[in-house]
């Protein structure tokens, strides 16, 4: 496979995944804030700031009055904004275009249809009544794309590269979401006694990661900070967890490298090292300095992506 095309496929995977997380973040935060138990969590300005914090550039100046329609439009459909969903899909499609001879017609067709749906989605409708419909459509379409990737491509190098992109992006987005909700929880405080630990924002966090139901099933408890973080970061069976993403990255990179003993400067070695570290990590250790952890894991994910780029895409 051509190095350039591998790079395109990697980024196709990343952009597809990114668009989903951003869409769901909009959806969950907007709708759960409508009947949130505390005043701040219900505040429009609070929710819009949270969205910008996660999806693009945070607005910290408290004197700025954000316009709801504008914020939603910017994140979802504004072609002028590089970090809007519509642009992510355009990038994904362009990346797919240059790898068109390698991917299935079915995958391309689904992505193309999805792109045109977004392109033709009327901004007026979106702002008036379409927020729910649009974001759900994005999430569902990405699911279809993942299905086509798994179900219609050869499980060879092409597949490994796309899955690398998807999983690195997923870990990145989950961390970004944790970061944003941790920030919200800090600002909002809990509703019952212990502020941070019992914040309503932890529920929203799980919903943003589509993991609320499974977390309830696993712990049989209401979400509190510790178990929420444990579930989303360390549980290898939670499909959205960092651990699971790292496991996937590890699997696909070893499929790709085909080497038994990876070079210690390689991406494969780094992934293995990070995995080993988190496999036996206690959530209590992470909670002590969550902010530090978030920065560290984001940097690590970045390093992995850089090493992949140098090893495979140049």
């Amino acid at each position, binding site marked *: 496979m051509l*190095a350039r095309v591998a790079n395109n496929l990697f980024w196709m995977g990343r952009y597809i995944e990114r668009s989903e997380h951003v869409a769901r973040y909009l959806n969950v935060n907007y709708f759960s804030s409508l009947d949130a138990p505390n005043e701040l969590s219900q505040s429009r300005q609070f929710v819009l700031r949270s969205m910008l914090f996660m999806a693009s550039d945070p607005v910290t100046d408290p004197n700025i009055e954000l316009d709801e329609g504008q914020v939603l439009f910017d994140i979802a459909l504004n072609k002028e904004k590089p970090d809007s969903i519509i642009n992510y899909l355009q990038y994904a499609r362009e990346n797919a275009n*240059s790898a068109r*001879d390698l991917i299935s017609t079915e995958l*391309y067709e689904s992505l*193309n249809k999805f792109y045109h749906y977004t392109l033709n989605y009327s901004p007026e409708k979106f702002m008036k009544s379409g927020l729910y419909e649009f974001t759900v459509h994005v999430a569902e379409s990405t699911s279809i794309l993942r299905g086509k990737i798994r179900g219609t491509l050869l499980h060879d190098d092409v597949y490994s590269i796309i899955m690398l992109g998807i999983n690195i992006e997923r870990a990145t987005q989950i961390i970004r979401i944790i970061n944003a909700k941790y920030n919200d929880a800090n600002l909002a405080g809990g509703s019952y006694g212990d502020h941070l630990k019992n914040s309503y924002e932890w529920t929203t966090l799980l919903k943003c990661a589509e993991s609320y139901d499974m977390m309830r099933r696993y712990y049989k408890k209401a979400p509190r900070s510790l178990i929420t973080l444990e579930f989303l970061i360390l549980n290898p069976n939670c499909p959205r967890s960092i651990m699971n993403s790292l496991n996937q990255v590890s699997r696909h990179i070893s499929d790709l490298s085909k080497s038994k003993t990876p070079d210690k400067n390689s991406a494969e070695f780094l992934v293995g090292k990070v995995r080993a570290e988190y496999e036996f990590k206690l959530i209590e250790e992470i909670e002590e300095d969550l902010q530090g952890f978030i920065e560290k894991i984001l940097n690590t994910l970045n390093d992995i992506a850089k090493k992949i780029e140098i090893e495979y895409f140049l």
Partner: protein
Amino acid sequence: MKLNTNQPSFSSYKRDNHLFDEIFTKNDEVKEVYKTLLNLYSEHSIQDYARLNEKAKASFFNQGITFQVYGEHETKEKIFPFDLFPRIIDHKEWSHIEKGVLQRSKALNHFLWDIYHDKKILKQGIVPLDLINSSANYLDQMQGLNPPGGIYNHISGTDLIKHSDGNYYVLEDNIRCPSGVSYVICNRTALKRALFGVFNHYQTHTVTDYAENLLEIMESVKPQGVDNPTCVVITPGIYNSAYYEHSYLAKAMGVELVEGRDLFVENDFVYMRTINGPQKVDVIYRRIDDIFMDPLEFRPDSTLGVPGLLAAYKLGNVCLVNAPGTGVADDKAIYTYMPQIIKYYLGEEPILNNVHTYHCNRPDELKYVLENIDKLVVKPVDEAGGYGISIGNKLTKAEIEKVKAVIKENPRKYIAQPIMSLSVHATYIEDSQSFEPRHVDLRTFCLLGKDKSFVLKGGLTRVALKKGNLIVNSSQGGGSKDTWVLKK
């Protein structure tokens, strides 16, 4: 069976006796090969047909089988309009076409070899030296070079029309990077899906064997000493209007689709950058023009090409398909010498007719052209895509004067031909929701390799969707039809 204008779908079908109708005879009889088809169509209502038409269009769009139209302000993604009414060519007629286009391709290959080697045809004055000297597409760098397998025009696209006399005429030979073959295959797929009930009443040759034949042709011209050649398709990139075709061909052949930046030359061998390191490339089907191929030799600002590619080619380490410098032979001025070229190299009479051509650089012919401009089509010698063509009987008096002035300014640049009346074929017209006659032509695809040749049994029937329009190019609002070549 006769043309029935009482049937709603044919209510606006106005047959013109001056034109050759592909479906109906002068007595409104349905021609033999179309009888079954029209019978089956009459079972469908025009609404059914309209629905199928919409579905086919949506399928093209969703699959991204589109091309870009560059407007003043924005670039639009459009599908190449597709007509569900197929064109049918019977066995006998086809075998005439097939022999004819193969003959032309071979003659052109001989011609290219000659003008890049001994130039006998020029020395004998059969083709004027001046035509070659003044051609921007003649590459001095190709002089004396022996392309692998002795092939220059591996891929030729010959455009044919049927005139009102019922005979085929060649309009032009395209031997640089003829495009359109992916549409032939997409049209077939779309038609089979929409009208499978009709399709299985006919014994039609497949068109999906094009890619495998192309790959065989490419492999046949591998450089010396290579056993299993690595073939690639090189494209200018995703923004090129024919990108879909490039990706289709790469995919169908199972070879990499590369851009210039994926390739590099080291010690006169060509490599592509893969995830597992450099891999040598042996045969390149190039869909970029000569002048963009190698910035060290041609346009230095080209980022589409590969520096050092021409040297690697000259040294025989890689094969380029088609060879550089083929453009000199599909020049419209050379076209007019095709009958002589065929006779000279093959010792045969041309199988397909050439349209009579007046050369504006010859004073007596220029005089005729200027006096009879209303009866002629005037074309620039070196422009592709239907640009700069004027059709005499469509011009106002003022326009005629303008065209005359333009020709007089630079007679060498123009040729003129009698207005050929392209045959017409029933075509679904969305506005009237019925079938109407529209002008069609036919692009054929011929492959030449080392000891091997192939003519695609089918072709791209291009149709001018605007009423009375003779220009069928997609950039000028043309569409296309599936073309059935019958086995018996």
